[in-house]
């Protein structure tokens, strides 16, 4: 049977990786991800984990080495944050466009300059166009579970896309919570051996990634979009399987909190969604008809699922913990864009960007901001479509 341990988010990820039994791990340390790599090194050196650790000299080489190993048939894993993720950015694209299954954990940290190690979602969101399936954890238990499920989703023949799992640095990464670790033999049976769409190991002459003309390339990229669509189904299947086998209650691409009778919906992603749910609880007790959606899988973007929830609402408030400079928050952009493909009469949607560069946002702040929004819409006012709220104590 599984066992319960008090683990930091980073260690929860390490334990998930241990259960998935990758063959090759190539990672480069960066705050706040370092303890993942350290824990995995310890597990390998004391025999708990039978894996090869390539101590690469940069993040670019980390993902490149993982790519090389994965093409030759190895199950691989890496983890990084912020600057490291940006350094490996070209390989992030290379991996998804070559349809190579792999799993990467992103311990979110804001993007520099200036030097800053505190969390927001900007490094994670910066990868949203690359073609990776992307999920984000709210607590350490979910971090472990998402990483484990990532291997299964990534290696599904309808998907064959790499998966990245995000968790906030320090807030989850370095904070201890009780975590249930699934039983090893049950995981082994459920996950099965590695599966991939092609293999290059000298058994037959095959090449990947050669020069390709526009029409053929477009067709290949279109396949990635199709795989993303299929991924929505696969994600739901895997989540349900996992729930049954290991006693969890996750709900697919999004998690709804009091949405069934809500006229107002908030949308968020990540650890602060927990604080938002506290605020929603408080507002409900004061009679506000409010619910919240927490996005679990950001790519593929769960537009259909969100639409089903918000189609009859009066107002939607999207909280973003990152900004696309010169434009709006990324979740808001995806949502507003997707919404217009469903209706010409959308509910009132507003965007609040907050908590950037690690500024702390509490349930109190969410309560105030959400209440303001609802009050404004109720008196037929027009709350600003976009607001960057710099929270100070």
């Amino acid at each position, binding site marked *: 049977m599984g066992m319960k341990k008090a683990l930091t988010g980073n260690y929860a990820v390490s334990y998930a990786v241990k259960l998935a039994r990758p*063959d090759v791990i190539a990672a480069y340390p960066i705050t706040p991800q370092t303890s993942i790599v350290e824990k995995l090194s310890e597990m390998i050196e004391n025999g708990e984990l039978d894996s090869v650790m*390539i101590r*690469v*000299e940069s993040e670019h080489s980390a993902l*490149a080495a993982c790519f*090389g190993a*994965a093409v030759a048939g190895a199950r691989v894993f890496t983890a990084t944050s912020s600057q490291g993720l940006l350094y490996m950015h070209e390989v992030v694209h290379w991996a998804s466009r070559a349809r190579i299954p792999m799993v990467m954990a992103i311990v979110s940290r804001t993007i520099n300059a200036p030097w800053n190690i505190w969390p927001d979602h900007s490094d994670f969101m910066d990868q949203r166009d690359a073609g990776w399936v992307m999920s984000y954890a709210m607590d350490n238990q979910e971090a472990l579970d998402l990483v484990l499920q990532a291997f299964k989703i990534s290696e599904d023949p309808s998907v064959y896309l790499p998966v990245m799992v995000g968790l906030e640095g320090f807030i989850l990464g370095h904070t201890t919570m009780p975590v249930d670790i699934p039983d090893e033999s049950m995981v082994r049976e459920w996950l099965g051996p590695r599966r991939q769409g092609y293999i290059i190991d000298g058994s037959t002459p095959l090449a990947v990634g050669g020069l390709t003309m526009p029409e053929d390339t477009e067709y290949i990229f279109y396949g990635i979009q199709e795989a993303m669509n299929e991924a929505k189904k696969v994600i739901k299947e895997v989540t349900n399987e996992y729930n049954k086998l290991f006693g969890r209650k996750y709900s697919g691409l999004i998690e709804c909190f009091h949405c069934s009778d809500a006229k107002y919906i908030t949308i968020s992603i990540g650890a602060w969604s927990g604080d938002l749910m506290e605020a929603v609880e408080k507002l409900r007790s004061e009679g506000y008809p409010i619910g919240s959606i927490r996005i679990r899988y950001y790519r593929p973007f769960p537009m259909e699922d969100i639409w089903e929830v918000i189609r009859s609402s009066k107002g939607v408030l999207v909280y973003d913990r990152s900004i696309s400079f010169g434009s709006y928050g990324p979740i808001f952009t995806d949502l507003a864009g997707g919404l217009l493909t469903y209706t010409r009469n959308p509910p009132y949607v507003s965007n609040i960007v907050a908590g950037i560069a690690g500024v702390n946002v509490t349930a109190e702040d969410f309560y105030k901001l959400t209440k303001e929004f609802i009050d404004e819409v109720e008196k037929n006012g027009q709350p600003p479509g976009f607001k960057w709220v710099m929270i100070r104590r």
Partner: protein
Amino acid sequence: MGDDQEVIYVSTGRPKPPIPYNMRDMVLPGDAACPGCPIPMAWKVLSAVFGEKMILVIPACCSSVVVGTYPFHSLKTSIIHVPFASAAAVASGTAEALERRGILDVQVVAWAGDGGTADIGMASLSGAAERNNNILYIMYDNEAYMNTGIQRSSSTPLGAWTTTTPIKGKIEPKKDVAKIMIAHGVSYVATASIGYPHDFYNKLQKAKGIRGFKFIHLHAPCPIGWRFDPRYTVRIAKLAVETGLWILYEYHDGKLTISSPSRAYMDPSKRKPIEEYIKLQGRFRNITEELLSEIKRQMDANWEWIKKHM
């Protein structure tokens, strides 16, 4: 190791060398290389040693385009095309995966140009060398970024015309990557030239028998970039060695050995004058007397270094 070589006797009664018979199958005609390109010449020698039992890891360079367009490629072997700076890193990952899977007879060969090795690929090269990953890294040196149109690289020789050194020529000396690899203390380092295929073949066979990081710096004259008639590719490669400008040697087990084609040229009086090499190449057309003497001086310094470390 030790495939049965087919031995064929001709009227002289002497057995035929293993090449070229093994060179026939892997490099397929009709590729996209320029006429006279040294790259497929080198691949033929590579195929004589490894055949299909290798995986080429190719970053952005001429080779990534020479092999043709989707859905086909012009080599009867496996290739992983990779981002520019990552050849050594991807090759390391592939080598580890193969070893994990118990596949010990397939050699991972990182095949990269001078740009992808000495410039943008330097960090990943150094990383793989330091970790002693089991890869054979071959830097084929055509002395510029040829694929993007002959721009200067750190491996371009002094005084050479390139599109980014169009009037003054390159004013920095050629970066010596083989020496950098020796300084890393890797298992095997060698210099080779497409003009000496048997020497290259022997070095590849030696590397095949070693597990660890192996580096070969292969001189590969480019008719388009160096401005000479394509028929002279081999002649120019040989002249580089005969003038003493390109020294063939091996470094293994802490020992530096001069290879037999270069041994004669240890004696300066035996070397052909470097003007013979220079005047055949349009890229040196406007080289000044000053730069020419600087080249000679650096060549002598190079030979001194070799003799000191032999």
